């Protein structure tokens, strides 16, 4: 079994066994506390630029299949686990998890004390790191980690976005035309929109508002995606131009973009929210939803003008903002992932809310 090393910018070094591809990759080192759903995590484009630690210690148990990917390939830079299964056991499994990562050049380090690593990041905050399953000395890798660009200020969304517009497989009887901005969109969002009766046209991150409106959408969807929302000035500009002209629904990065477009600010969280167990209180229903999270940045609720925005969702763990809606125009967004995959389905109603909003606007037109 060959060795792998994870080196962090603060000089910490973790050694373990190498799996996946014999490669060296750099990125921001983050942790996710979901117990199930590693394949969805591997393939979620929001993880571009990130080395992911999974806190659940037994990973790979049920293999990988063609149905559970959130994009065409894994987007994580590297994977850190306690134990990586040598076999895959599930009736839907088509390959081992290791094969999926290996074939896409993603290195894995296993046998790492992931709990210690997580405690370290929890205390010190997320940091940059290098995962090498392709050799290299500890000192050299630490140096490389320090030379990795910071996540703050990085526009990764444009990089992972599609280059050309395409249409997602439409439902049998489409009720709405939706244009979805792809900042790194997860397939399950597209599936959920389709299930809600939407014919979805996916457009590149830099599509101009006028071009979107030319498609005569019933609503516009702003997707999740990787990186810092701040540099996405042009996208924010386009969204601002869309507000009031078509209903808008945003998830995750899409929520942050809507926040910026509504005059708010975003900031970086110490170690982010990544997991499938976050309690979010919906102020409108006074119900708690258990939600799936994957974000390192958040919208500062104090930066939003209460006369035009209503805070609708709050995280009960740390009271960060999880959702708001515009009072003046038909637009709303959530920071978390109602489409789940992985995670609980408590918030699927948001897709219906979007449909209802589109319905209302169409009626009023």
């Amino acid at each position, binding site marked *: 079994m060959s060795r792998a090393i994870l080196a962090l910018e603060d000089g910490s070094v973790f050694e373990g066994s190498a799996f996946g591809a014999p490669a060296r990759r750099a990125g921001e080192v983050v942790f996710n506390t979901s117990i199930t759903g590693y*394949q969805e995590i591997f393939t979620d484009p929001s993880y571009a630029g990130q080395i992911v630690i999974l806190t659940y210690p037994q990973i790979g*148990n049920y293999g990988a299949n063609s149905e559970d990917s959130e994009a065409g390939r894994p987007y994580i830079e590297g994977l850190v686990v306690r134990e990586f299964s040598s076999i895959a056991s599930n009736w839907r499994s088509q390959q081992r998890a290791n094969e999926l990562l290996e074939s896409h050049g993603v290195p894995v380090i296993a046998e790492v004390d992931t709990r210690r690593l997580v405690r370290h990041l*929890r205390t010190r905050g997320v940091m940059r790191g290098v995962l090498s399953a392709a050799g290299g000395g500890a000192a050299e890798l630490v140096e490389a980690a320090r030379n990795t660009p910071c996540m703050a200020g990085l526009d990764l969304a444009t990089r992972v976005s599609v280059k050309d517009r395409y249409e997602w497989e439409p439902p049998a009887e489409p009720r709405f035309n939706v244009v979805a901005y792809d900042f790194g969109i997860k397939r399950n969002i597209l599936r959920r929109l389709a299930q809600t009766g939407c014919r979805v046209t996916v457009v590149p991150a830099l599509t101009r508002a006028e071009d979107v409106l030319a498609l005569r959408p019933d609503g516009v969807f702003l997707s999740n995606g990787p990186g810092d929302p701040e540099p996405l000035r042009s996208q924010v500009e386009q969204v601002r131009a869309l507000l009031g002209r078509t209903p808008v629904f945003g998830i995750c990065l899409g929520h942050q973009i809507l926040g910026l477009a509504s005059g708010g600010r975003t900031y970086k969280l110490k170690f982010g929210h990544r997991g499938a167990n976050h309690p979010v209180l919906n102020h409108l229903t006074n119900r708690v939803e258990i939600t799936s999270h994957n974000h390192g940045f958040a919208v500062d609720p104090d930066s939003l003008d209460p006369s035009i925005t209503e805070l609708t969702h709050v995280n009960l763990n740390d009271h960060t903002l999880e959702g708001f809606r515009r009072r003046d125009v038909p637009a709303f967004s959530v920071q978390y992932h109602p489409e789940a995959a992985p995670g609980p389905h408590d918030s699927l109603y948001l897709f219906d809310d979007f449909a209802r909003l589109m319905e209302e606007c169409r009626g009023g037109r």
Partner: protein
Amino acid sequence: MPRRDDIRRILIVGSGPIVIGQACEFDYSGTQACKALRADGYQVVLLNSNPATIMTDPELADCTYVEPLTPEFAEQVIRRERPDALLSTVGGQTGLNLSVALAEAGVLDRYGVELIGAKVDAIKKAEDRLLFKDAMRRIGLESPDSKLVNNLEDALAYAGRVGYPVVLRPSFTLGGTGGGIAYNREDLIEILDRGLALSPVHEVLIEESLLGWKEFEMEVMRDLAGNAIIVCSIENFDPMGVHTGDSVTVAPAQTLTDREYQMMRDGSLACLREIGVDTGGSNVQFAFHPETGRMVVIEMNPRVSRSSALASKATGFPIAKIAAKLAVGYRLDEIANDITRKTPACFEPAIDYVVVKIPRWQFEKLPGAEPVLGTQMKSVGEVMAIGRTFKQALAKGMRSLETGKAAAAEVFDESLIPQKLITPTPERLGYVFHALRRGHSLEQVREMTTIDPWFLQQIKEVVELEKRLEAESLETVSPATLLRAKRDGLSDAFLARTWKTDALAVRERRKQLGIRAVFNRVDTCAAEFESFTPYLYSSYESECEAEPASRKKVMILGSGPNRIGQGIEFDYCCCHASFALQESGVESIMVNCNPETVSTDYDTSDRLYFEPLTLEEVLNICDTEKPSGVIVQFGGQTPLTLALPLKRQGVPIIGTDPDSIDLAEDRKRFGKLLDDLGIPSPPNGTATGADEACEAARRIGFPVLVRPSYVLGGRAMAIAYDEETVRRYVQEAVVFSRERPVLIDRFLEDATEVDVDALSDGEDVLIAGVMEHIEEAGIHSGDSSCVLPAISLGGIERATIESCTVRLARALKVVGLMNVQYAIKDGTVYVLEVNPRASRTVPYVSKATGVPLPKVAVGLMLGRRLREMSNLTGGLAQGCLPVPQFFVKSPVFPFNKFPGVDPALGPEMRSTGEVMGVGVNFGEAFAKAQLSAGTPLPDKGCAFLSVNNRDKAAALEVARRLSEFGFSLTATRGTAAALQAAGLRVKTVLKVNEGRPNGVDLMKAGAIQLVIYTPAGAHSFSDERVIRRAAIANRIPCITTMSAARAAAEAVAYRRRDPVRVWSLQEIHRGQQSAQG
């Protein structure tokens, strides 16, 4: 939605005695509920018949009733206490059933008591299999194909349609009692017959077989606002076909993708909503077809269950406590997570370790029972282990079981591999290891067991590691390989066996190499937030999170898995020890591996180590914590066997010195002590071989009692009337060695047995209780009913017992608790055995006297004198504690679960639990105890007597009383003649071997309400056995000794004379408390 102010006083119903399928997990849930509600300002009225529980401690409720769990007695409690609400969901199936019965009888309406937790409609929908299936169909969840039948014809027709095997489940029975899998017509007829008889509604569900499907459980919580969360998922290692209580289970689920997991989650939440469980915890079970992924819902429990106890311990999320708060109106998001403090309880625990539960069976104590696992639960206890990986957790779990056999040292028969893998038995897990070691492929094992390949692969990897280690030695092994072995859970003892050295040498070597156990925290959040609760498990990771405190601390070693003879009573003692330490300002550290208990609640002690009770693990904790004292005398035999080895490693044992413990257990040394003190004991000897044993028996004189040394609960004890039996016993029944010889004692026939619990500080000795057994000597003390105060002891006998106890305590320098067993025969008081530790009767005596014995004992161990603690003992430092009223403790047996087992009592303990009856006279206390034990004595009807010649005089006396009470009498020929000779009217009936109609026929016909049947010796054995079995099957009280028959007559007298009345422990001991206060 804040707490409800319209209710003020809440009745909590417990689950009664420990039985298979309903054990101390409900003490844990009830205790949590009591604490949570009282902390919130509610008054709690508690009803439970089990005195060994923590929940029945007078300190935990405002009013505590140790009374029968019947509607009649519960109504009396309600009438006196007038609670506003009844919490139905924390007392297991018994609590739920009683709640429904009270509601249906109109009692709750009559007294204006609101049912909280689950309403009657919801309970019915969940419990009634047909209503449940309908409900599931409405929400689109598939259930197994099935049909409810009440006759054979329908059952056969159904089985003909779906094909064998079919599963049978009697309606409304506990732990799957009476259920089974029928592989053919004959099986079907037999199981159906039994199931219909056991079902209170005479119904059995017959169902398509899901044998081999993957089985899962989801633990769900819901609040009144409709917020719902999953606390934990559990995957069964053993596929469908083995009751989940008898399966090795793993948390969280290991082999489901997120998509399938979320299907179960959605299904569970929908199920709760549809059934209408307003608040609290529920458990929903699912099965997946391993090839197609078809998901079906199996059942749901609308209450806190065994699995919720496991899930609570596995995640650190206190389900019962939260359930209690939800029942009084709180929302999940209004309750804080105790462990992180900053986050709410409305979340789903994220765990970063693996939990394995392994059941503990005791077929060896139940000869005649078939050790095959099926749909009816048969295990008596369980262990849980936490590891960073499945391998580590599994290995820790296996050594937590204390089977007395090390996995690798077990004897396996190669030729039995297919059979042992195909038919689930307690040995299957061992045989999976064995088969893989012997080179069977994973696919072969998979095919025979249908266990998921992922689990088998883990075991295979361990077996491969074992092979690599065999090529090494203690000297040659590399640090990396040794670390790998420890990370995969292999014990020092296992490595020592592999390398032909001893475990302490392995320990030394690995410590030299820097390989030490560290401790990780169970924190509900996978380290995302800081944890404030030191709930710890060991691992071989790189960072220790124990953060030991520097203040004075004492470690308590718990009692491990529940077993017959070592159960909840010891957990009671351990918990009290912990509370007492905290009150004395000493940090308490608990070590235990039993997930059902109160002791493994992270709330009970200052620090909790969820670890196997092995020398290795305990020493690892001592290395980290460096406790100033370790208490071994509260956890039964488990910690006692560790006492000397720990002391040799320099661990400070407090209380009675381990050497005194050894002295009391060592035949020769103890015999000499008794001689020196001039205290008589039955003639005895020891032997390490059959010839030696026979010779000793001849010298001592028959009958003799033979048994191995160092046992609890009379494991493998026998009474031998001849040499042949002694020889067979020594050759077949026990494992012995030079250090652990076979013990042989003269058996004192017809003696009265007395149990004494005492407190001692080494000088002053306070006798806490002198308990008189209702069964005579020869019946294991744990299986005999006993009474406080003693009812037939003479003044001289009593004085002798007290003086012997004092002298023994001083001679053994007992500091803390001591138990002595005496037998009185022909006026002589003999010492049978001395145990310088807490005994099984400590909770019972504590409740009867109102004095918290373990608390006093802890004070003594911390160096205080009895005189300094007289505020706790009603002013006494010597003499004997007074007992107001009468308290009878009666055992509860598992015979209804094991149709082949002879229920005759003997020196081998077989009861799983106990109950207590309280009365102003002995008859009342005994009658209540028998009622609580599930064998209510009749107040009218026909008594059937058949006694041996020796008992005829006594039988006459009993028969006369019964006749005076209006009973008609039936007897076998000899007995009838004796009774008729004395002028009683008796009908003669045939013995079973004489022809028909006989006693059994009369029982089946319902013509007999009480059986008095004393054994006449080996020649009539089969006849007796049939009678006893028939009595159990027809739920007729069957009394096998004359002393018990006399007690029964007293009880009948009470039933005809006194009203139904109840007392709370608080009012009984009010005098005691005012003396304290």
